[in-house]
C-alpha cells in the first residue's frame, strides 16, 4: 500500500520576493540588482557563512531557500535532495566562457555544474544522504513527486527537500519544499506540489 507523506513547508523566491508557506517574508524597499537582492536576503536571514559570497547565484539561491525551510526545525543529516531546473549552471558557464580566453577563474569554474548547489547545501547543513539533480524544460511535478515518494518509501531518506531551482541570465525561479512522514495539513501529492509551486505567481 502506498504510504502517505506530507509537505512540511515551502519556500518560493521569485520576482525579488521571498515567500514562506505562501506568506511574503521579504522584499527589498527599493529595486536592486540580483547580486544585491541575494545579499539583502542573506542579511535578512542573519546567516553567517562567509563562503556564501563566493558562490554563484544558483548556489546562493539554493542555500537561501534551504535556510528558510529549516529555520524552525533544522534538517537532519539524512535529509535527501531532489532538485530540478531548466538551465543547469548556465550563468556560471556563461561567465566562465566570457573569460576563458584571458585568465580563467578557478572560483567560477568550480560552479560550472548544476549539482554543485546540492553539494553546497550538503556542506552547509552537514547532509550525507541521497541527492539527485534533473534537467527539464519546466518544473515536472509528477516526476519530482514520484522520485521523492520512491526515496521515502524505500527509506533511502527520512526526509526530502525537493523542488525547482531555475537560474538563468535574465531571471530566476526557486521553489523548494520539505517532505517527510510527520502529519501536516498538506499530503504530498503531485497536485499539492503543483499548487504550492504556483502559489505567489
Amino acid at each position, binding site marked *: 500500500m502506498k504510504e502517505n507523506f506530507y509537505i512540511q513547508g515551502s519556500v518560493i523566491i521569485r520576482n525579488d520576493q521571498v515567500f514562506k508557506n505562501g506568506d511574503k517574508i521579504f522584499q527589498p524597499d527599493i529595486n536592486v540588482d540580483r547580486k544585491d537582492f541575494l545579499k539583502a536576503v542573506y542579511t535578512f536571514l542573519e546567516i553567517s557563512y562567509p563562503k556564501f559570497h*563566493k558562490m554563484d547565484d544558483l548556489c546562493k539561491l539554493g542555500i537561501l531557500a534551504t535556510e528558510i525551510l529549516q529555520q524552525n526545525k533544522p534538517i537532519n543529516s539524512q535529509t535527501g535532495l531532489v532538485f530540478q531546473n531548466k538551465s543547469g549552471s548556465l550563468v556560471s558557464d556563461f561567465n566562465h566562457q566570457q573569460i576563458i580566453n584571458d*585568465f580563467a*577563474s578557478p*572560483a567560477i569554474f568550480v560552479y560550472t555544474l548544476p549539482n554543485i548547489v546540492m553539494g553546497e547545501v550538503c556542506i552547509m547543513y552537514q547532509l550525507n544522504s541521497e541527492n539527485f539533480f534533473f534537467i527539464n524544460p519546466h518544473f515536472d511535478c509528477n516526476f519530482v513527486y514520484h522520485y521523492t515518494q520512491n526515496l521515502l518509501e524505500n527509506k533511502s531518506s527520512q526526509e526530502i527537500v525537493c523542488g525547482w531551482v531555475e537560474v538563468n541570465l535574465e531571471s530566476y525561479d526557486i521553489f523548494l519544499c520539505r517532505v517527510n512522514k510527520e502529519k501536516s495539513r498538506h499530503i504530498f501529492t503531485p497536485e499539492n506540489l503543483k499548487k504550492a509551486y504556483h502559489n505567489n505567481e
Partner: protein
Amino acid sequence: MSNLREELKYKIIENLNLEDLSVEDIGNNDLLFGDDIGLDSIDALEIIVLLEKDYGIKITDPKQGKEIFESIETIAQFIEKNQ
C-alpha cells in the same frame, strides 16, 4: 613597500569575494590559510591566477605555494623578488 601589501589585501578581498573582510582586518603576517583568514584551495588557485595576471609571475613549482601563500608578507616578498 607597504603599498604593495595594501594592494594585495585589496585585490585578494576583491578577487576572492571576501565580503566580510576589509583591508584593515588582514594583518601582514596573518595566516591566510589558517585560522586567521581561512582561505581554501580554490582561493589558492585564484591567487596563482592573480599573480600571473596582475604581476606577470608564474608559479612553476606547486610545492612553493605553501610557503609563498603563508601571508600577505610572504606573497609581497615573493613578488618583490621575482618582478
